[in-house]
């Protein structure tokens, strides 16, 4: 007879093996491409984790992944599939840019919450409309959110070709913000504590991302409205019985989900590039789907998955930079394989592994019983 499955089986062992499988598949691809696999891995790990600077970049990318992962996960708990992360992040960035361009004379301690709120509300609005359409018109959020991605990217292009375009510039970029409105980088922050960190794009938004994780956990599992959100996600009729207004929950959830993803704009625009440009979202919005999937829609899992993706992103860039016949596409390939093995095929190994493990567990039981008898 089988014993109970130990808790670490599904939560640690299986994900770890899946990641190893994904890496194995990556190695095969690299080998086919004629790269020295071991050297490639070394470049990647060295680039992502080998130095303070590397780690710093990894965490900077992870920040974006955390925001989009949290947003997708929250919507998922209400049974909604928000794939409009790209559009919502774009709108968040637009909001940040408007604040930084027009209110740059405000002191930073006022400007920071202001840009935070603007990013949140612009992105929330962009997700709220699909939410409203779903609640009152029954349109599917997958369709509407992806449409809104297209609208947002067109809107961004329009803004950068017209109202927000920097004067005397050919490129579709906005003016560079006044330095007073830049978010403090972690290097600056560390300096004030007497520590020294390399100067990288990693900024204070990373801390805000971690705070968001905690807040989302409290929201979902420790509050009435989070409870209602999850009930709606499980069963519409059950929610109806519980006296929960589904429409209200759908709209609120979509808005908050959008707001979380909108914070990508904060990290990218106000934290790093200090100007609005066309392709700042760069797939981070879509990556949130994979992050949420891998992190099992739990904030802690999302942080871990985000750091993993950060490693892949940073390490992949290093690889593309240092190895001749490898381009930036390698990052997409790595991410794709990780999603394939950790997401789509996450239970592939489970049955055979359990069967194999059961024998072990049973033997362990026997040993334990013997020891008890002896004692």
């Amino acid at each position, binding site marked *: *007879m*089988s014993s109970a499955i130990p808790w670490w089986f599904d939560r640690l062992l299986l994900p770890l093996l899946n990641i190893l499988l994904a890496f194995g598949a990556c190695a095969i691809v690299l080998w086919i491409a004629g790269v020295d696999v071991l050297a490639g891995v070394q470049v990647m790990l060295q680039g992502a984790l080998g130095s303070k600077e590397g780690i710093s970049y990894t965490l900077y990318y992870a920040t974006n992944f955390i925001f989009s992962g949290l947003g997708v996960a929250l919507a998922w708990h209400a049974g909604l599939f928000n794939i409009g992360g790209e559009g919502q992040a774009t709108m968040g960035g637009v909001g940040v840019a408007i604040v930084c361009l027009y209110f740059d004379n405000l002191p930073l301690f006022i400007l920071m919450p202001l840009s935070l709120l603007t990013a949140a509300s612009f992105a929330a609005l962009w997700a709220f409309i699909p939410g409203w359409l779903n609640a009152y018109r029954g349109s599917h959020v997958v369709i509407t959110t992806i449409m809104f991605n297209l609208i947002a990217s067109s809107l961004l292009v329009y803004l950068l070709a017209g109202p927000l375009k920097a004067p005397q510039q050919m490129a579709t970029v906005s003016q560079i913000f006044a330095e007073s409105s830049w978010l403090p980088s972690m290097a600056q922050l560390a300096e004030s504590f007497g520590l020294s960190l390399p100067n990288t794009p990693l900024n204070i938004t990373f801390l805000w991302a971690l705070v968001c994780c905690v807040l989302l956990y409290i929201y979902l599992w420790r509050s009435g409205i989070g409870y*209602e959100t*999850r009930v709606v996600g499980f069963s519409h009729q059950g929610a*109806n*019985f519980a006296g929960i207004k589904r429409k209200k929950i759908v709209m609120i959830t979509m808005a908050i989900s959008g707001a979380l993803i909108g914070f990508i704009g904060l990290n990218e625009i106000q934290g790093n590039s200090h100007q609005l440009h066309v392709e700042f979202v760069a797939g981070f919005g879509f990556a949130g789907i994979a992050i949420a999937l891998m992190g099992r829609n739990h904030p802690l899992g999302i942080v871990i998955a985000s750091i993993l993706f950060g490693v892949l992103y940073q390490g992949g860039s290093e690889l593309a930079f240092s190895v001749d016949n490898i381009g930036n596409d390698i990052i997409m390939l790595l991410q794709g394989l990780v999603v394939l093995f950790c997401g789509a095929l996450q239970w592939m190994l489970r049955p055979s592994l359990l069967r194999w493990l059961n024998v072990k567990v049973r033997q362990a039981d026997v040993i334990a019983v013997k020891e008890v008898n002896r004692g």
Partner: protein
Amino acid sequence: MLAAALQLKDIFKHYQQVEALGGACLTVAAGSIHGIIGENGAGKSTLMQVAYGVTQPDSGEIVVDGAVIKISSAQVAIKHGIGMLHQRVSWLDEMSVLENIVLGDEIKSYVYQDLTKARQELEQLRREFGFSFSLDVAMTQLNYSERQLVDILRSLYRGVRILILDEPMALLSPDQADYLTKLLVMLKLQGISVIIVSHKLASLHQLCDVISVLSNGKVVHDVRPSSLSLGQLSKLMVGREIVLPHASSRNKQALTHAPLLNVSNLTVYAQKRGRRVRSDPLLEQCNLSLFGGEIVAIAGLPNAGQELLLDVIAGLHHFNRGSIELFGKEYRAKNHYCIAKARKLGVAYAPNPTLEIGLIGQLSMIESSFLGYQSKGLRQFSLFNPSIKKQHCINLMKQWRIRPLLAHMLSGNFSGGNQQKMVLARELSRQPKLLLLNQPTQGVDAGAVEYVYQQLFALRDNGGCILFCSSDLDEMISLSDRIVIIEQGKVVTQVLTADIDKAQLGLLLVKEVLQQQPRQETSTQGNKS
């Protein structure tokens, strides 16, 4: 002793931390009706799932007709002549009975399926067992009982020699249950073994040749009902004689002068494509008053409107005309009366267990233990602190003996009876002024029913009122003070329970059946042409 048709030997099955079956042995003789009883969570359903191949045992042997076999799926089970009826079968509603039954047959041609042979066989079976429905009607036109019969017909067509039924009588009206009983006896005479899992000890006692009692995952007794009384049987199951408190045994308290609930001229129209159809009201001009300190049953045929009436009073379904007056305050259709408001006023509702809306299966028992009472005005504790939530749940589980005592387990992993106990525990713990119940004891074992009744009577004696509907006539008689009879959405009459007995109540309902039957026939004919 007849030859054994099916033997289950030393079946073990664990779920996570729970031992569902711990060496269960069961022998079913060929051509017999074999009853299985046991308390909630004793392992009845798991054992049946093992026999039907839906669940794989950790260890143990299954012997069919003398040969040891491995049943890896339901398909294999059917191949070996084992069939099982489910409470909820998903039929293709728009297709005919015939098409639904042959679905899953081996397909010989993807272009043209020849149904003449199947039709001949099915017609023969249909005539042999006297099924009244035609093979060509669409499933939508059949009621619950007829769908169940279609399921039996399907099993017979597949050549099943051992038929497993899980709570088959739960949702049947008395005459439908009678018919099913007769049918099962016919099957038995044909040499088919029938296994029935049920909590209705009385009907099993009459019907079965052998009854096995399950307790803690083991078969502890195999008895012949002819050799012992019903009381002894219940004693075997719960270890003591079950004495159901009876409504007439209460000390009559003065009823409140003003009714707690007053429903007047309540009308609900059917909706088709978002428009109300006035010609076809689901509830029509219903009038009903409930006073404090009484229990009222709504009796009627299945789908006569009693469930909808409960839903409307609970605020789960809208109404179009009339009013609901609760504790002196009147609500009309335009007043946005809803279930959250009803709860705030002191109404509690335990919905039909088969709908699975009273608990959310994917939530842990802890979180299910305050479903419906999560909003600010209703919750009795903060949702922030996990240990308070857990304590609340553990208290309810201990009080109602919900097993296993694992508050963190998903509520969907508890047996049906234990889930229903949690729903009742939650709703009763609110000390409601008006309690609405739909099939309150369905799936709940006889020992726990006793406890449910005690709790309900306690609520009533404290001045609360209870409105319930049930398909069990015995339950109506023993629980209620007054019975309201509803027919096609209209309240037709009401009687004091003290004035009638079960037979008379049955007659009242049968009278409706007689009135309804011609109407049903015309409607099927109308559809054919």
